[in-house]
């Protein structure tokens, strides 16, 4: 088994070297021709192994155009992929903890990974099988939810920041940071995020607290702040942010930077909208790849994770998904403009002041939920 795996890994590594030379030629070609990032189809297909990996990921969260990741993986390794998607961490967690499904690889978000580790649902990874882990930026390793980085390999990341309309919002007001959401000048034009964790997180960062705080006094102070803000808020929304920002109905809205590609899109979006991350710091979230404890094909699962960390694959995924990539080489391959875009890659010192969510104790969740209901009364 071990030896077989070594052969497999070697194969992938060699292929990768041959692949590296491929995309260079395509760069100069005219735009009309489709860009070939990795011409894996010309490589010999691996013999069928008879193994099928069950992969569980977010919807629209893997490239199937530029490289067509899953097909490439099967072609090159002979391992079939049974790929399924979920809509929320909670749904995914509920399904897996019920034991009703057998998955090998899952890609949940930070706090859910923490919870899964706590409940002994994940297998520690053998990083000898994932040499491409070296490409992952150290900034995204050893985060709170997996402090020694034994269970997960980062896949995408993002931050919460503020979208604002440059036509109506005075650039000088941005210096207020999160306080901008409390600026009476923009009363009725401010949207607020409609879930307690993010709404409290924003307030906590503004007040200089940790967004994983369990201190009830701090949370109460946040509640009072949010109550103060309520008369200024046009609406509490999630995905309605798009419409309202695009139609100039709202001018200021906190949301996830990955959605900039919708809101700020030149044609379908609103080019007047810009994005910034307040200096006080923010929540930054990571979705990472894990192997489930009861997986029967752990080595193949690790090979899959390694495959996802091949620069061409990481690049294709980043391009397709639109979220920021923790993969150094994948990011290098992106357009200069995108690679240095402060929307997708905020300044490092801001990130230093930011935190990932960890799973809070039940009492704290309950307390926050109660305060949230109180706010909406």
């Amino acid at each position: 088994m071990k030896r077989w795996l070594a052969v497999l890994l070697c194969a992938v590594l060699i292929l990768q070297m041959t692949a590296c030379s491929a995309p260079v030629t395509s760069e100069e070609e005219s735009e009309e021709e489709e860009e070939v990032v990795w011409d894996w189809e010309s490589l010999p297909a691996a013999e069928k192994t008879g193994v099928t990996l069950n992969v569980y990921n977010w919807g629209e969260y893997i490239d199937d155009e530029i490289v067509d990741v899953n097909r490439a993986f099967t072609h090159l390794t002979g391992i079939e992929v049974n790929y399924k998607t979920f809509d929320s961490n909670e749904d995914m967690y509920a399904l897996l903890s019920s034991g009703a499904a057998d998955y090998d690889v899952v890609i949940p978000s930070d706090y859910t990974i923490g919870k899964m580790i706590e409940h002994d649902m994940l297998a520690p990874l053998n990083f000898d099988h994932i040499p491409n882990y070296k490409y992952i930026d150290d900034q995204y390793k050893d985060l709170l939810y997996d402090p020694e980085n034994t269970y997960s390999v980062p896949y995408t990341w993002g931050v919460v920041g503020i979208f604002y309309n440059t036509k109506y919002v005075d650039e000088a007001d941005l210096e207020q940071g999160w306080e901008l959401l409390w600026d009476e000048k923009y009363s009725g034009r401010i949207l607020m995020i409609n879930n307690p964790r993010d709404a409290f997180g924003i307030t906590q960062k503004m007040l200089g607290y940790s967004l994983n705080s369990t201190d009830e006094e701090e949370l109460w102070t946040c509640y009072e702040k949010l109550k103060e803000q309520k008369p200024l808020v046009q609406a509490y929304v999630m995905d309605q942010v798009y419409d309202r920002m695009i139609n100039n109905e709202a001018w200021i809205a906190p949301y996830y930077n990955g959605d900039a590609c919708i809101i700020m899109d030149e044609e379908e979006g609103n080019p007047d909208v810009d994005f910034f991350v307040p200096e006080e710091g923010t929540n930054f979230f990571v979705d990472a790849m894990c192997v489930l404890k009861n997986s029967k094909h752990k080595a193949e699962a690790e090979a899959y994770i390694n495959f996802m960390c091949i620069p061409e694959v990481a690049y294709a995924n980043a391009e397709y998904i639109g979220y920021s990539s923790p993969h150094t080489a994948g990011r290098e391959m992106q357009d200069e403009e995108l690679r240095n875009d402060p929307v997708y890659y905020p300044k490092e010192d801001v990130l230093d002041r930011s935190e990932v969510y960890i799973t809070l104790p039940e009492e704290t969740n309950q307390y926050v939920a109660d305060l949230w209901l109180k706010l909406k009364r």
Partner: protein
Amino acid sequence: MKKKTTALAAPFGIWMAIFTIVPIAMVLWFAFTDANGQFTLANVQEIFAFDPSKGETLWEDSFVSTILYSLWLGFLTTVISLIIAYPLAFSISRATERVQLTMVMLVMLPMWMNFLLRTQAIKSLLSESGLLNQFIGLFGFGPLEILNTDAAIVIGLVYDFLPYMILPLYSVMVKIGKSEIEAAQDLGANTFSVFRRVVLPLSVPGILNGITMVFVPSVSTFVISTLLGGSKRMMIGDVIESMFVGEAPNMGVGSALSLVLMVLIFLCMACTRLVDKSDDYEKGGLTL
């Protein structure tokens, strides 16, 4: 013969048992037990923010204001629907049979569309850059700020539930014969008297049915206040939903709230039945 017809109800009986009786029993169970399955009144007390150790209620922390708010919006919706539906239903019932058929079809037409879609449409109509504001903008008015207010919620509710008011009214009014009205007129009644002494009493069962069919769903609605009201103030349906999904689910309190809502709605329905003293089969009910 009697036995045979009872048996015909069996499929519905089974359906009812699985999807109505069992869920209600589960709601009761969750409402009156704690996490360990022990009997408790804590969930119900929490709704009223009743502190047993002090023996007092913290109104500020209770859900009473949310319940009253939902009842108030439901009441407004019902009254407005009735005002719009009553004259319309009467005029349809006086038209020729073909016109009646077409009109009833038109009333039902919006119900063919998913109510979420319809609510989204209302949202775009009422929004600042929406059609309504564009239209009144032509005359130099506006823009009106309707979206994200209670008015928007009520407009949305009336739009969604109006057919449920029109149809029962129409089905009762269509049975009021021309001869009854003519008889009243022959006996010297003016238009107002005809309405008050003949049409109104004969349409009471329809009014009551309509009220029930509009009031109950509007009080317990959810999502509409999120879409049209800007989610600033939750209706009771939204609160119940938040008790079952999200990061801190609390099925106990959620069930207790559903139970309180059920009791309230039952009481409201009982009140309407009190008004409808007559048990005349001919008059009552939805006959479509």
